[in-house]
């Protein structure tokens, strides 16, 4: 047998008191695509960052191609032929494709970087691996899929034989995913070792040869892909059978709560993000917006909530036009709650206490009014009560919200948004980065809210979530609503096609 490409033994990584990797063994061979799967926070990325020399405070040993190594920085890892494509791209936006590719080891002419030569090199590389790209383009002008290509080229230019891909498909369209999978296969055929970090089971099935499953910092299984199926992998990831089905009352939509009329808006970079979207949400229904990440979902939620200015169109809430100086306030006054998808930066203020974070959405209500002042003792009572009701695990309500874990923070945010009994709840990625237990709880809350006769607009990248909760499903593609399905007729296949931008022939 040939030498292993990667052999990591007994790797332990700690961050303060948290053990991110606990005595992990990991092996990958040359000429294979190796899937490293697990839930968010299982420790996959940490393990690979150790391999890439980004974390150096670990215990355990590493062998690359049979040779014992100790990295003190990514530079060392690169010199051993390891390349990594990160989840958040490590590209310099103001530089061209060529400059970004050669940045680690540029060609020189007379002591200065030879830009022309760089472009030639990139053109050559992209031809060799079938990764088409214009070396002269500025990276900031590229689509996400193309940026990923630049990342792969960058790693290859540095002589990567072992290529780590960290959740590469999260930002890609189905076609781009297909292309990427092709690329990975061809790289494999050239004898390279590819490690694919992912939590998406379909990809694992599609492209990997073997998989290593991680849960809570330890390896729970190592199997050949051919010997297993998605259900089994899911069980190994989660540790128990996953049933995310929620009991809900029959679907009886009432009058219209939210009505969008031809709305369009730009994203924060000034590019068109939502294009001519119209739909209604009624009482007693959950409308799910499905789509591949980055197709305008966040912007749609922000536009409805008044956080992004509309370039065109109108939003009506309970029949009232939402426009004027302070639209977010108007929306809230007319019964809107909003679980924002960026709970760290927008949905909460890390430096404020739990109490103040809760108060921010309801400090205007009469419940906490005392003459011209705020009644803080009453507010404390309310917050305590809701923290209990929503089973949020906290220390004191005067602690900063940043002391909470992801799931608890999200529960607190949901408690806050539900407190005012909103007629319309916008739930944008409500379970992102939240553990299974909390996810089930959040699902129940959303359905309960709907059953009480309120409207819910659910936006999620997780198809399973959309299918579990929605009564009606709209699919968004490149900022437009490309199709609408009733829950009864919706299947994963049908939605998947729409998510890829393919309309059914009728």
């Amino acid at each position: 047998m040939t030498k292993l490409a990667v052999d990591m033994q007994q790797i332990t990584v700690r961050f303060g008191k948290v053990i991110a990797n606990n005595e992990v063994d990991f092996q990958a061979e040359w000429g294979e695509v190796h899937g490293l799967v697990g839930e968010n926070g299982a420790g996959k990325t940490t393990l690979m960052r150790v391999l890439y020399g980004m974390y150096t405070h670990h215990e355990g040993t590493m062998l690359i191609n049979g040779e014992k190594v100790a990295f003190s920085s990514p530079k060392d890892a690169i010199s051993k032929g390891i390349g990594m494509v990160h989840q958040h791209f490590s590209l310099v936006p103001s530089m061209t494709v060529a400059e970004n590719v050669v940045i680690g080891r540029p060609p020189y002419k007379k002591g200065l970087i030879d830009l022309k030569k760089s472009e030639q090199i990139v053109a050559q590389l992209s031809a060799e691996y079938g990764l088409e790209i214009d070396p002269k383009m500025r990276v900031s002008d590229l689509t996400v899929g193309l940026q990923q290509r630049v990342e792969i080229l960058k790693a290859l230019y540095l002589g990567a034989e072992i290529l780590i891909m960290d959740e590469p498909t999260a930002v890609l369209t189905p076609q781009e995913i297909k292309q990427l999978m092709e690329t990975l296969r061809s790289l494999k055929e050239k004898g390279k070792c590819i490690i694919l970090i992912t939590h998406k089971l379909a990809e694992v099935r599609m492209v990997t040869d073997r998989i290593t499953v991680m849960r809570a910092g330890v390896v729970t299984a190592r199997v050949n892909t051919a010997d297993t199926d998605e259900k089994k992998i899911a069980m190994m990831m989660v540790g128990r059978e996953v049933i995310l089905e929620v009991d809900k009352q029959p679907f009886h939509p009432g009058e219209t709560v939210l009505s969008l009329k031809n709305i369009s808006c730009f994203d924060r970079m000034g590019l068109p993000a939502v294009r001519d979207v119209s739909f209604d949400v009624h009482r007693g229904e959950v409308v799910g917006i499905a789509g591949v990440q980055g197709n305008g979902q966040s912007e749609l939620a922000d536009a409805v909530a008044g956080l992004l200015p509309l370039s065109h169109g109108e939003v009506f809430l309970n029949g009232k036009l939402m426009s004027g100086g302070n639209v977010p306030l108007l929306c809230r006054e007319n019964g809107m709650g909003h679980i924002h998808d960026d709970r760290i930066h927008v949905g909460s203020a890390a430096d404020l206490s739990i109490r103040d974070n809760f108060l921010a959405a309801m400090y205007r209500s009469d419940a906490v009014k005392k003459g011209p002042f705020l009644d803080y003792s009453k507010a404390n009572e309310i917050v305590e009560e809701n923290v209990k009701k929503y089973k949020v695990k906290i220390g004191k309500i005067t602690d900063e919200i940043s002391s909470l874990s992801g799931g608890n923070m999200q529960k607190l945010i949901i408690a806050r948004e539900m407190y005012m009994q909103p007629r319309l709840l916008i739930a944008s990625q409500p379970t992102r980065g939240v553990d299974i237990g909390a996810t089930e709880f959040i699902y129940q809350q959303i359905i309960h809210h709907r059953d009480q006769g309120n409207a819910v607009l659910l936006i999620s990248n997780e198809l399973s979530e959309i299918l579990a909760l929605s009564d009606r499903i709209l699919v968004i593609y490149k900022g437009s609503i490309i199709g609408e399905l009733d829950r009864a007729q919706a299947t994963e296949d049908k939605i998947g096609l729409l998510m890829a931008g393919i309309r059914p022939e009728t």
Partner: protein
Amino acid sequence: MNFEFRQRKIKPSIIALSICIGLVLGTVFVLLGGYNVLEVYSYLIRGSLGSVSALSSTIRWTTAFLLCGIASGIAFKGGMFNMGTEGQLYMGAISATLVGIYCKGLPAIAHIPLCMLAGMVAGAIWASIPALLRVYWNTSEIVVTLMMNYIAINFTSFLVKEYFLTTGVFGDSLTTDELAATARFPVFGGSPISFGFILGTLLIIAYILFFTKSKRGFEIKVSGVNPDFAKFSGISVNKVRISVMLMSGMVAGLAGAAEIMGVQGRFLSGFSPDFGTSGMLVALLGNSSGIGIYISAIFMGILKAGSLTLERSAGVSRALAVVIQALIICFVSVKTLKVFDFKKKEGSGKE
């Protein structure tokens, strides 16, 4: 890179440590200058707390620092790094002076508030320019307020020189006539407590009530900490930003007016020993909390009064006080005091 300022939480322990570091490093400078440390500190204490006149000197400086500290604190709370309190103070001072000189024949009970009002309005108008530019034109308030300081200082000098110059010679400064007696703050006999100090204390109480009890105060607090979250919660961040700048300018203008009406008695060009910067130091050290501002204003007042005596008696530059203050502020915002990290804890990948 952004030069956005967000109000952050600072632990009291860090503030205490910063004060220690500032004093220690200040002592190093004293030693470097070849002075006797004990002597220097004893002058500092005696010059600020050692006698009734020392106490009144301390209170005289504390008053100015307190008002300027409140001015800066309001702006910081709302996430606006108003570096222009100095300019707003000058504009307030000149307006109060002119009203004080030329609105004659009013009783003191009307004249004093009128002068104060004039100062506040002028300060607010001066502060409104960077505020509006920031909100509607996204222009860094830091740069604009800084530039407007220099403009205000030159502009007031210009006004005095061209239109309001007094007859006679008063040192190097350009000087106006004296204020009418009805526009001067009342004095309480031989007591070191001044009218301005009482005013500042009342303002601090209002400040504390405003930020811990009122709705508006809550809105400002949220906006200052995280404007995106504030907007998300339905708070108009633009409105908050303009209102804190106006309030900040008002108080800075009032500080200028109080300095003229309580201490100088007339407008002198360059009368402020950079009260604006001192006010910012006070607000930063007090972490923009009412009690914090009050305590740090007194602390700085003590340093200032002491350093003046120090310069007179021991020939040590009064700038020692500025050195110590600035060194303290250098350390208040830091996250860790471990400079030499022998055990490398995080990989270079973490920024």
